[in-house]
């Protein structure tokens, strides 16, 4: 159990550190074991140092910074033990345009490794998509889904064929 846990921990740590530096374009981050002697029962703490800033409390991070640190940890866990797919529901809501761009570029790196289904209002995130589903609701409280093919046709075109009702 202990060897397996340490293997996971080290893989997640390496991924977290890598994605943190990509998302923040610099800085340092780490995850540390409270009690390295008995790792499988030890707590884990996160430390961050943002580029240009002193080391700080996690509570002092801004809304966007919290989303980016959490995204780096999530990408670290996914790259350590990839699952077949991942659904992200508006995780980019707090991000400004520049950080949305960085976030999107990481998602694009995962293509071929893990499938991502991303719910978003952010035009910057949509730009990277291979396919887009548009969800709407008429005045009857019933959801409709339309598939907007992207890649091969360049422009978004609505392909009603896939709305099966």
């Amino acid at each position, binding site marked *: 159990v202990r060897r397996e846990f340490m293997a996971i921990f080290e893989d997640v740590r390496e991924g977290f550190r890598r994605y943190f530096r990509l998302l923040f374009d610099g800085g340092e981050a780490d995850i540390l074991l409270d009690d390295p002697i008995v790792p499988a029962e030890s*707590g884990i703490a996160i430390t961050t140092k943002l580029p240009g800033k002193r080391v700080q409390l996690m509570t002092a991070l801004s809304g966007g910074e919290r989303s980016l640190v959490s*995204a780096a940890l*999530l990408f670290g866990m*996914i790259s350590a033990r990839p*699952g077949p*797919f991942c659904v992200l529901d508006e995780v980019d809501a707090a991000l400004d345009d520049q950080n949305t761009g960085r976030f999107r570029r990481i*998602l694009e790196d995962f293509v071929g490794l893990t499938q991502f289904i991303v719910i978003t209002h952010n035009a910057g995130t949509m730009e990277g998509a291979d396919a887009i589903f548009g969800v709407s609701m008429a005045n009857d409280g019933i959801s409709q889904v339309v598939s907007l093919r992207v890649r091969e046709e360049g422009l978004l075109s609505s392909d009603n064929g896939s709305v099966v009702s």
Partner: protein
Amino acid sequence: MYLKRLDIFGFKSFPRRTVLEFEQGLTAVVGPNGSGKSNIADAVRWALGEQSMKAVRGTKTEDVIFGGGGNRGRSGLAEVSLTFDNADGWFKVDFNEIAITRRAHRSGENEYLLNGARVRLKDIQDLLRSVGLGVGGNSVINQGQIDAALTLKPDGLRELLEESA
């Protein structure tokens, strides 16, 4: 392996059978407030065997069954299927496609099916865990929850890492 198709029928704001066919890369889901995007994320989480109704924004089984709207009465049943492409044999079973289905009746009874055959919840959970898709893992990140990991205590963070393995 990837999620090839999602079928939703009678679940939340989807009284009609709605089919989403996914590509392997990055898929974006977009639409106005309240149109049903997070309901799609809930459908995926629910089909993976989620037992906490709070995690799909409800209080009891009935809350996920279409409650009526427009001139359509309420549904008697909610059913969601996830169809995976298993060409690469990630699931250690002898099928090219794996379909996991969950059904709930207004009586509160839940049924689970694997490629159309009735199975127990435990069978679904064991199968999913073998490919890193356990409900506790990172397969669905709910709206507003991206930075939940930052509020966990050190022990909670260790558990998060263990579950993602």
